[in-house]
């Protein structure tokens, strides 16, 4: 149960407390709306992750199979040599988008798949099997970048959700009940004082009547 606030039982204090409850209630309503919106966003991202993750893993396993084939046909050393010669540049545009103040990454990837000439390794020492493996890894890379964007978004939304939930709970279970408790206390105290006054007046009136 929420502990009552130590307050002076005056009408002024009652007015102040009523204003505070109004503000706390407004904050609670808005944060609750924010929490609902965060849930929508979170499940949306989760759904997209569930679609993107199997695709990326599938593509990775296809790429690994192609690489094993390449090791077998071209040779391990030759493949590793070719990988060292490959250009490791990728045009990725990383910016941010905002979901209720949470900055989540927005990644726009250009063309990841390259042709054998652009990759940078020598063509006379390698085979088309290597080209095929490279192409499959490039496809996997694109899917992994998309997955990374989604996973980072999910983490950011979850962190914000946790923070918002803590605030909503503090308002719902601590602050608002305490304020209401204090209002109840003041109202009861004021009523009691009024009753005391009333009976005091009646007593004075009776005494005055006796005297007359």
């Amino acid at each position: 149960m929420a502990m009552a606030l130590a307050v002076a039982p005056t009408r002024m204090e009652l007015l102040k407390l009523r204003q505070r409850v109004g503000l706390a209630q407004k904050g609670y309503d808005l944060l609750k709306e924010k929490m609902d919106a965060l849930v929508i966003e979170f499940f949306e991202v989760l759904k997209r992750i569930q679609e993107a993750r199997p695709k990326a893993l599938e593509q990775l396993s296809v790429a690994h199979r192609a690489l094993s084939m390449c090791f077998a046909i071209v040779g391990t050393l030759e493949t590793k040599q070719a990988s060292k010669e490959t250009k490791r540049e990728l045009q990725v545009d990383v910016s941010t988008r905002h979901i209720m103040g949470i900055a989540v990454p927005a990644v726009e990837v250009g063309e990841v798949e390259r042709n054998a000439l652009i990759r940078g390794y020598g063509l006379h020492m390698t085979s088309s099997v290597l080209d095929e493996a490279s192409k499959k890894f490039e496809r996997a890379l694109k899917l992994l970048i998309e997955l990374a964007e989604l996973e980072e978004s999910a983490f950011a939304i979850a962190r914000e959700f946790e923070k918002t939930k803590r605030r909503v709970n503090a308002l719902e279970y601590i602050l608002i009940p305490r304020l209401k408790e204090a209002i109840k206390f003041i109202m009861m105290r004021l009523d009691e004082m009024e009753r005391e006054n009333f009976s005091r007046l009646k007593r004075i009136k009776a005494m005055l009547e006796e005297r007359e």
Partner: protein
Amino acid sequence: MSSDRIIKLELSRLNLHLPERRLSLKEALLSPRPQVVARDGSVHVFKRGELEFLAGLLPEADRDKLPLPILIALEPKLGRGTARISGEVEVKVVSQVLGKEAAAGELLIYRPEVAILRRKLPTTTQYLFMW
């Protein structure tokens, strides 16, 4: 800090992600990097794919009348999960995206529709908290 000040601070921070100046769809389409600067100084970038999707929904003449991002206004007094879309062109676009009948000037949408709208337009829509 008193709890009231914390609540006021929290409320004042709710809309800091909104842009200082909204961009029209036409401006966004013409810009090499379509983006807006938020009130907290951060940058919010629109995805080109979404801009093209929106352009496909509107006649050429209306493209400079659609301010971006489209604001999804959440108001507790409307009821939990209810949102308001204001503005003639915004309502037209959102109605088309959701497959709803177009209303004049204002449209109320509900939580499942908000989810659909956010799924289709994640960067070109933003939440606005009203009280």
